[in-house]
């Protein structure tokens, strides 16, 4: 949904409401590092291809949605968009959304301080417990572990 669509009162199609809410935290995490590169947008849409939540959406539409959410965050502020996403999702899907955000933030095997801070804010808005957030960090860190940084293990952080 573009800015102009929103001004005209357009709502996203019903089958895009949950997918957009799941994507919002990941897009917000990407923006913590500046304007996302085309590669990052493609990474997120690629990640979505694995999730049953996005199975009904074409890859091109996924990439378009990422750009639309990015514009919404820029226009209306990350906190507003994130709070709306949290209100749209049941607790279980808020966990899913946080997994996506952490995965995108850790895509290159490291997590810069600004993205780490953004993830803390996102976890708070999504209402995740410290234990759940730590478990997610731990396993996503395992998935994103590089071959030559065996100590990139975030267990114990809280």
């Amino acid at each position, binding site marked *: 949904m573009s800015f102009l669509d929103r001004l005209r009162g357009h709502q996203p199609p019903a089958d895009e409401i*949950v*997918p957009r809410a799941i994507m919002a935290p990941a897009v917000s995490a990407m923006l913590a590092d500046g304007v996302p590169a085309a590669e990052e947008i493609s*990474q997120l849409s*690629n*990640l979505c*291809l*694995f*999730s*049953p*939540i996005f199975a009904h959406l074409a890859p091109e539409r996924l990439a378009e949605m990422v750009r639309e959410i990015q514009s919404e965050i820029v226009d209306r502020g990350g906190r507003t968009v994130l709070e709306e996403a949290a209100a749209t999702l049941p607790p*279980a*899907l808020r*966990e*899913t959304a946080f*997994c*996506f955000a952490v*995965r995108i933030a850790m*895509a*290159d*095997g490291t997590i810069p301080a600004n993205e780490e801070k953004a993830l803390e804010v996102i976890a708070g808005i999504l209402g995740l417990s410290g234990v759940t957030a730590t*478990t*997610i960090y*731990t*396993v*996503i860190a*395992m*998935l*994103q*572990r*590089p*071959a030559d940084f*065996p*100590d*990139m*293990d975030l267990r114990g952080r809280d």
Partner: protein
Amino acid sequence: MSFLRKLAGATPPADEEIPRAVLTPSVSAIMADGDMQSPEVRMLSNICAFSPIFHHIEPERLAEIVRELIAEVMDRGGATMLAEAAAKLDHGLRETAFCFVVRLIMADGKIGEHEKEALKKIEEVLGLDSGEVAQIYTVIAMMQRPAH
């Protein structure tokens, strides 16, 4: 590394040794349920595209490595290949390899009986403790949750 290259004594390039070892459990798990189909090869290559372990490898080469591992598992057996892979990886990368397996197996949202057995064996060969394994299942299941 193809069967012919293996017969000829060829060894994989040094920068492919860890990536191949990380991929071996995934290939072995999927083959537990029959031959690996090309959508699964594509899915595995896609998972790898996100991992820094594979960033230096071109997508075409990655798909080729997966096909080579399938041939090797068929020639030499999954158990031998798994034990060799485990010996090459430190504990952290064994966890990573297991995450890949679970991610791949749970891609369709469910785990079949053959796959459960295969996962159990892989978990043992990789020497993971039950707490780590439970965390991995929990988070991968979160990632694969459907909307309803």
